[in-house]
């Protein structure tokens, strides 16, 4: 199989859309064809070979794209990919892994907003931090992330998992306001602290917070303390075990019969109840 190594030649000012350079596309292309692929840059089009040093190798296993010297002007990296691997050395721009269906993206740096927007499957691993709207819906849409896994080792911004329907988002650091807003399924796990309005307007799914929570929305109902709970999102769901002792809430009661589950660490939030 093929390994494509792209090295960004110099810093760019106008963002470039990288959605054409994904493993399931490059596996069928020659070096020349890849160099001549046209990418959108602002209102112009540029060739891959004009922006990047391009190297194509034969490797074992699934196709792979490696982007070296990357920065946050490279948008839509790994967008809509279905298989293989994308490895980013450096930061990455908006919409990394947007609408991805399969395969894996590893970002060895930070990601800009909208990482994993409307993701359908596969895995997105961000070793640094991510900005707002991790795993959210397209702006305006009420049909969000429907599968796959997003892991952010650093912090994340506001409104992560907006309108999420399925899959997993795991943020190892802290997150901003309105985590899991309009959530309708899936699980969000936050190891760090969350800012206000966690789970606002959620209908279903679960949010687990290990860190500090200043306050829970008044439209959530307190259910009691649970230990090492198994999160079940449906009757058939065999469950996802979570370790720790949590206050459990159900909400958001701005909706009729909401099924959203909110688990908040007892240890770090003695002030809550």
């Amino acid at each position, binding site marked *: 199989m093929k390994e494509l190594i792209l090295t960004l030649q110099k810093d760019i000012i106008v963002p470039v859309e990288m959605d054409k350079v994904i493993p399931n596309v490059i596996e069928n292309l020659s070096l020349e064809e890849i160099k001549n692929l046209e990418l959108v840059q602002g209102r112009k089009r540029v060739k891959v070979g004009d922006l990047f040093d391009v190297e194509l190798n034969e490797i074992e296993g699934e196709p792979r794209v490696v982007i070296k010297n990357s920065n946050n002007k490279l948008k839509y990296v790994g967008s809509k990919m279905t298989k293989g691997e994308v490895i980013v050395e450096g930061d990455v721009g908006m919409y990394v892994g947007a609408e991805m269906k399969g395969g894996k993206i590893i970002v060895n740096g930070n990601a800009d907003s909208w990482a994993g927007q409307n993701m359908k499957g596969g895995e997105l691993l961000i070793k640094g931090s991510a900005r707002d709207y991790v795993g959210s*819906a*397209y*702006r*305006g*849409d*009420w049909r969000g992330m429907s599968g796959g896994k997003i892991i952010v080792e650093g912090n994340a911004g506001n409104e992560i998992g907006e309108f999420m329907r399925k899959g997993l988002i795991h943020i190892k650091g802290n997150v901003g306001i309105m985590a899991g807003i309009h959530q309708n399924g899936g699980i969000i796990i936050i190891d760090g602290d969350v800012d206000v309005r966690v789970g606002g307007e959620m209908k279903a799914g679960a949010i687990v917070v290990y860190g500090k929570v200043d306050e829970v929305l008044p439209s959530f109902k307190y259910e009691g303390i649970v230990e090492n709970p198994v999160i079940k999102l449906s009757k058939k769901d065999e469950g996802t075990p979570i370790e720790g002792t949590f206050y459990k809430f159900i909400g958001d009661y701005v909706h009729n019969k909401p099924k959203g589950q909110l688990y908040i660490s007892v240890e770090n939030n003695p002030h809550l109840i």
Partner: protein
Amino acid sequence: MEYIIKNGIVYDPLNGVNGEKMDICVKDGKIVESVSDNAKIIDASNCVVMPGGVDSHSHLAGAKVNVGRIFRPEDSVKDIYAKKGLRTGTGFSVPSTYKTGYQYSEMGYTMVVEAAMPPLIARHTHEEFIETPQIDKAAMPLFGNNWMVMEYLKEGDIKACAAYVAWLLKATRGFAIKIVNPGGTEAWGWGKNVHSLDDPVPYFDITPREIVRGLAEVNEMLGLPHSIHVHPNNLGHPGNWETTLETMKCVEGIEAKPRYGERETSYYNTHCQFHSYGGTSWKDFESKAIEIAEYVNKSKHVVIDVGQITLDETTTMTADGPMEYDLHMTNGLKWANCDVELETGSGVVPFIYSPKGPVYAVQWAIGLELFLHTNTDKVLLTTDHPNAGPFIRYPRVIAWLMSKKYRDEWLYNKVHKWAQQRSHVADSDKEYDLYEIAKITRANQAKVLGLSETKGHLGVGAEADIAIYAIDPEEKDGKKIEKAFRYAKYVLKGGDVVVKDGNIVKQIFGDTIYVDVQVGEDLMNEVLKDVEEKFRRYYSVNIDNYPVSDKYANSWRVIKIDATDIN
């Protein structure tokens, strides 16, 4: 510039031309008897020639359309229009203005009427018209919930109401009297609705029957080109067919008396599909389309447009504020609502008409039944764009009507079985021919709008608005029919070739048409006192800032009517 369109098969119902091979001559923007040898030849061999399409009911421009665009970026991203040399545009169900104009033009349409213009924000509609290329435009201001209209009619002062209507039409550069959920949108301002023709409006204590009948009388007193254009009460509610029939009946006996044009009807029921529902709830929901069609067929005064469901994800938008609230409560999707001071209101909600939904399947069937059972002189093709579906689906609707095979393909393979069980659409073998298609997409429209002197036909003296489609008149392949009507072979607008092989080859800007009726001066002065009083007391704008000024069009076309006998 001269053209001669050679060897096409011509369908021109207003002149009784049914599939004759003949040449059409064009000179200086008009259709003429003959042209010189210098005329450019347009080869229409193996093609069908029709007058340019006319759409009498579409929500294409103005405040609520723009709300739809703004609050649905997810619709915007679904369809991107970017062609070399043309303005780019976006939006599947609520396209931006240039995309709207281009796509109508690609389909061979040359005139479109905006179905609902809130008078106070008429400027927004006209501003968008300025940026909508390729087509002539007109807009219908909303009158059915207007305080002054309700007060004059309550007092029984038809003449004063007529003068007010004349004033407002001119002030907003409007074209016709639009009535939406008469009294219901005002009731919505009180958190209520009206549920039958005799349900009084809060405070104003007038009934929808009095509003509809009163405005129909006003319309014929003024002799407007178009009749009253009505969206009756109870839109979209099971069992509403009775309200629809009652509303049609309530203006029986009011004769069409246009002072301009050749209209014969005094009542236009828009998006009749939404008003032909039987049953008492969604559980026993069923079609009453045949009952409605039977009444329309025997009633000289009525014409309907269908508002065909296209089974797409779309955006609903109407001045029927309470209906949109009901819709939002039903589907749970986002909702925008607006109150327009003394005049009207509106709501916007996205909607997904899934073919697999039992109710949507019946709605789809009801629209088709209306087409199949109504006399083809009395029915018009619309999708109430974008309410029942986007206008770019007209070709698909045409294909459903022309090919029983194609219709059945959808009926038996794609849509829920309720379509077969709760309607009679499966029983009809009717297939439209191109003559009938030409009626329901241009000739009937031109006539009921009162524009048939120069639009909707290909006779000598008509505007050279011409559509040429690459289609065999016997074609039954649904996909081929769709393609032929979606992308015209040629379109001429005002004598210019604007589309070739489905591509826009020339960008032009059509006229904005409005009606200026002169009533007796003394009467108008009396009414203006009332109007000024209303502005002083209630409006948020000064009366001098209200009228739409001259600069709000690329080019105006005014229909002047002398009604100074009303005094």
